[in-house]
């Protein structure tokens, strides 16, 4: 086989990956996508929330408190999914030195922390009427609290260095080490005897929830996911532009000094 032909399939993925690392291309693509994703996310979230609050049935055992699920479950899903995004950005940053991955990781951190805090707060608001306690040191709750601290640690660490590259590298290592918490969160309700209920939706089995509750939950999850993506894209766009502003100002200052 021709040597160049053998090398071509290896070169193609690297080119396609770095094609999206170009900040100018990212700004153009995200600028075109952002209004549509944002508007769609907003519309779907409003529909899902109204459906869950007004039209979905109350639970025979929990009463109307089950409606908190339409906020709590999407927030919990996004807390974990956001951290998966953070871990993927960390791999891209550490292995391929993808220039946008560092900026995206920095911008995912606060949003993920916000949604994790939302998950914990709505969990408390659901737990008090159902369990009689705002908080219990249950394996699921504790592992999600650890996730919140991991997000906070990442936010602090990437901003703790004078050289931003060192902060990005330290944050990426922390994010990858912290990813071990994700399977613990997922399987905590199976590995330990928890007060938190087991998963109602699994990939392998049928959902243990009525379809009249499952559909609004699904709509809310899609809507909140699109909003999460919109927020992260908007923050990353701002970060790319701010980096360019810093670069231009530094170039201008060095020209004036010379």
């Amino acid at each position: 086989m021709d040597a160049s032909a053998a090398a071509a399939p290896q070169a193609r993925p690297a080119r396609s990956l770095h094609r999206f690392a170009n900040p100018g291309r990212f700004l153009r693509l995200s600028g075109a996508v952002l209004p549509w994703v944002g508007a769609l996310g907003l519309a779907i979230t409003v529909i899902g929330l109204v459906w869950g609050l007004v039209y979905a049935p109350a639970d025979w055992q929990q009463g109307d408190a089950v409606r908190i699920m339409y906020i709590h479950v999407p927030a919990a899903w996004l807390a974990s999914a956001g951290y998966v995004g953070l871990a993927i950005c960390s791999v891209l940053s550490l292995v391929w030195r993808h220039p946008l991955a560092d900026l995206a990781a920095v911008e995912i951190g606060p949003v993920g922390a916000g949604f994790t805090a939302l998950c914990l707060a709505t969990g408390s608001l659901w737990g008090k009427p159902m369990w009689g306690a705002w908080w219990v040191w249950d394996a699921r709750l504790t592992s999600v609290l650890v996730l919140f601290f991991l997000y906070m640690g990442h936010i602090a660490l990437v901003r703790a260095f004078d050289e931003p590259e060192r902060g990005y590298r330290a944050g990426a290592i922390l994010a990858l080490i912290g990813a071990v918490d994700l399977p613990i969160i997922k399987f905590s309700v199976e590995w330990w005897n928890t007060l938190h209920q087991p998963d109602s939706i699994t990939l392998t089995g049928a959902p243990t929830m009525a379809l009249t509750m499952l559909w609004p939950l699904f709509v809310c999850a899609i809507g909140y996911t699109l909003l999460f993506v919109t927020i992260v894209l908007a923050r990353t766009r701002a970060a790319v532009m701010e980096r360019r502003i810093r670069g231009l100002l530094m170039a201008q200052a060095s020209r004036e000094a010379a």
Partner: protein
Amino acid sequence: MTHLPFIAASYALGVLVPLVFGVLALTRMGTARRKLAAIDPRAQRKARAA
């Protein structure tokens, strides 16, 4: 509706958290875009050409 205060507080948080993040992100993006347009030579060339 049973447990109304807990439900109302949850929905308030569920609306406020994405709203605050969204407004802050859009404001930051708008500020960065304006600053960049003011100092970026490429943006200035485009504006002169238009």
